């Protein structure tokens, strides 16, 4: 797994590349938590080059989204983890596990970043 992190104005963009499994999921978790520690709760995960994800990776995503959503500026504005670019195989995992309805998923990063 490889992670490319870019800090934008209001949003942090993380590109997740390769395989997220039990061995690599802790690294993703660590990066997301370091952003939370900086007070950065608006995160877009670009999954266009994600090849593989198993349950430890899914667990990181769901825990992170719960934490991000707990951070609120107003009732309408706050933190979130949003997804951009879901490859077909990963979409299949999202569909099987109900993650498709658990996350806001966008067609590209511009759209996902703009949604905040």
């Amino acid at each position, binding site marked *: 797994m490889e992670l490319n992190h870019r800090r934008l104005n209001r949003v942090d963009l993380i590109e997740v590349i390769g*395989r997220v*499994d*039990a*061995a690599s999921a802790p690294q993703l978790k660590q990066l997301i938590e370091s952003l939370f520690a900086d007070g950065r709760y608006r995160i877009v995960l670009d999954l266009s080059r994600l090849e*593989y994800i*198993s*349950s*430890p990776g*899914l*667990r990181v995503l*769901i*825990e992170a*989204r*719960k934490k991000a*959503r707990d951070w609120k500026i107003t009732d309408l504005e706050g933190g979130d983890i949003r997804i951009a670019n879901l490859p077909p*195989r990963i979409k299949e*995992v999202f569909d*099987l*596990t*109900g993650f498709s*309805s*658990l996350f806001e998923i966008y067609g590209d990063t511009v759209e996902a970043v703009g949604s905040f």
Partner: protein
Amino acid sequence: MESITLTADLDALAKISAFITAAAERCGLDERATWQVQLAVDEAVTNVIQHAYDPDQPGDLTLSWQCHDHRFIVTVRDHGRQFDPSTVPVPDITSPLEERQVGGLGIYLITRLMDEVHFEFSPQGGNLLTMVKYLPHDQPAEANEVVVIAINDRIDALTAPRVSKLVNERISNGARQVVLDLSNVSFLSSSGLRALLLIRKELMTLGGELRLAALQPQVYEVFTITGFTQVFNIHPSVSEARAAFSQRR
């Protein structure tokens, strides 16, 4: 059946993934089914790594596979603490984020990705997880037929690679019930015998079978001298070899 035994730690994941992906492809699973098997096995192995042993004292896990009767069968065995799948709650995948439980997805995914899943435990054997994926119905044309391949040369160190290549091409096209017509083979060397043994092993791994037919006396003698008449199915003629397949079914 082929197996791999590894220490149950996170380093095992990548090796097992490569091992099972190659196996699924050899068994004839398509790209999507191969991916599903890969994910199910990864979840099973992750489960063993995280729950069967103490993290600072990981034990072994053994992964085995075989192709049998249009099914790809994978087993994962460990000798760690007993795993009882009924204690793992089935996640409610429709619940909203706030109520959504974070665990239990691994076992759930295994049951969704595979066609059959069985758990067993015994004090001697440890935990045994068996997962089965059915092969797609549109089998390659040759899979259900008896394929007769005539070898028209000596089989020695020089020609054995050609013979292996010829037969392996048919196996990759789906041939599983194979008869080698040896009526025109006047000589078989030890290299040739080794090539035939490898073909036999490959077919057995894939759930198929090799039969040899119409051996000339001096070739048959190679089998009797080496004792390999016990190992190979040898028939006087191609038609009798064919008939032996149909009797079995």
